[in-house]
């Protein structure tokens, strides 16, 4: 494995060391390490099947890793559940969006709010005033986020009406609703039309400007070049290269792993 230039500093917002994951006999993540600096926007690229989404699943706790360690702001979360990591400020989007289809856009975003007293059955019965107060605050914030991703006109519609690109936007709003310190975005621009693409790039830049650290998986190299000062390249479960988007996409070994011979 290539030695990383800056070895994972386990006190940064997110640090992973030597992660491994196999499905059956198929080792999909094979000793990956990465470190996300405070407020950094880091790109994660690589050919199809390189193991990028699996890496996300390990980082977010959607899947348990076979080996290695993960730290969130200095806390070891290797054994922490997915929901526990979210409560510690990590939030992720899904490559294939997972909207709550039969719930409205507004409800989808509201669900993502943290520390809701009304999500406990006893408190929902016994503390109606507190619950109403929190709902009021959350509904205002949810609407701001729905405006932010330009879905206001659809807020009362069930999420099933959304197009593929709009679902990506909904994922973004839900991720932000959790008030994260670190976000993992899995191909936020996949299947998004060019008009929406500019919107998504702009929104991600704004999120980053708020000081949230972002790890971004993306095949669209234009987007990566515009957003990420630094990228890491994954191939066959391993770290292949690291550097600025310009440097990395000129390297021969990186060009080789993309099947068509061209860096996207």
């Amino acid at each position, binding site marked *: 494995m290539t030695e990383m230039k800056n070895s994972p500093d386990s006190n940064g917002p997110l640090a992973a060391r030597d992660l491994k994951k196999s499905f059956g006999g198929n080792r999909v993540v094979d000793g990956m390490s990465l470190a996300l600096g405070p407020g950094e926007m880091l790109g994660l690229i690589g050919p199809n099947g390189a193991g990028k989404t699996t890496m996300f699943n390990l980082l*977010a706790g*959607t899947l348990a890793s076979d080996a290695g360690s993960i730290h969130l702001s200095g806390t070891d979360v290797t054994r922490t*559940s*997915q*929901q*526990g990591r*979210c*409560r510690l400020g990590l*939030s*992720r989007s*899904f490559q294939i969006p*997972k*909207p*709550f*289809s*039969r*719930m*409205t856009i*507004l*409800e*989808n975003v*509201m*669900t*993502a709010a*943290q520390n*809701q*007293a*009304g*999500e*406990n*059955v*006893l408190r*929902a*019965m016994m503390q109606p005033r507190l*619950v*109403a107060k*929190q*709902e*009021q605050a959350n*509904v205002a914030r949810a*609407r701001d986020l729905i405006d932010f991703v330009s879905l*206001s006109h659809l*807020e*009362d519609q*069930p999420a099933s009406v959304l197009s593929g690109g709009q679902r990506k936007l909904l994922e973004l709003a*839900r991720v932000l*609703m*959790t008030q994260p310190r670190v976000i993992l975005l899995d191909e936020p621009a996949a299947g998004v039309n060019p008009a929406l693409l500019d919107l998504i790039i702009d929104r991600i830049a704004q999120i980053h400007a708020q000081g949230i650290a972002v790890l971004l998986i993306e095949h669209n190299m234009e987007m990566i070049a515009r957003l990420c000062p630094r990228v890491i390249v994954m191939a066959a479960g391993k770290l292949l290269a690291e550097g600025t988007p310009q440097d990395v996409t000129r390297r021969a070994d990186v060009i080789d792993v993309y099947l068509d011979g061209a860096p996207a």
Partner: protein
Amino acid sequence: MEYLAYGAFFLTIAMTYALICLGLNVQWGQTGLFNVGVAAFVGAGAYTSGLFTTPAVVDRLGGFDLPIWVGWIAAALVGGVLSFLVGALTIRMRTDYLAITTFGIAITLQLAFQNLEGLTGGVFGMSFIPRAFGDLQGRSIAFNLSNFALAAAMVFAVYLLLQHLMRSPWGRLLRAVREDETAAQSMGKNPVSLRLQAFVLGGAIMGLAGAVQAHFIGFIAPGNYLPMMTFQVWAMLIVGGSGNNRGAILGAVLVWAIWALSGSIISEIFPADQQARAASLQIVVIGVMLCLILLWRPQGILPEARTSSRHLGKRPDKGPKP
């Protein structure tokens, strides 16, 4: 006039079933928890309430002679605690474990009711359970009507509570977890704890229902809490509309009506010595009804309605929407 008394009697029993059915609807209809031991939770509630409210007796424990409402509360608590124990052990495992465990609990408790004579009165059951409006017992119309009003009020109260909960953040999360558990977890939600809460709430309602039933009839015995009761309640929920609280109530009344009617028809047309065997025809009738519903209206008479949470008003900047 006799019909009026009988009608009120019939409807009171139907209301107690409606309560059980509402409890099962929280567990199955709204959360997808497969409870095949409904009778155990109802029975636990009934016996608990009996224990607390019957007058002092010599041959068994209890007989604390407490007011009926204490019995109701104790029954709901015991139903809830029993559900908590069962749920805490099994809900995090594969879904079929809950089914197996609830089935086991039903068998175990039924045997316990039968054999723990010092606690339950054994096969003879518990009698002299104080009846609500007991001083009206001599006048059957007034007695049955008052009890019906009471049971209906309880169904209504539980219905309102459940509707309130379905529109609260708790209900919203329940729907979210049902739609996509991984997405909910990625938002920091804990589906296991949520399911456990739903299971306990449902079990507490079943326990309460058991007590209400016991305080209407005034007598309970192990034979009341056979798997047959579980089957009846499931039939009620499926016929009425799983996931819909109004459906649960409607299903309870409807299935109980068909059950009672087929029972009296059987007792009319079969000679006395064959009635015990003919009684199983009632199960056939309910079974056929279930099949018909599943064929023609698989979601039940009142399918689950789209619920959404209170949004505390519309967007301030856009004014009222159509």
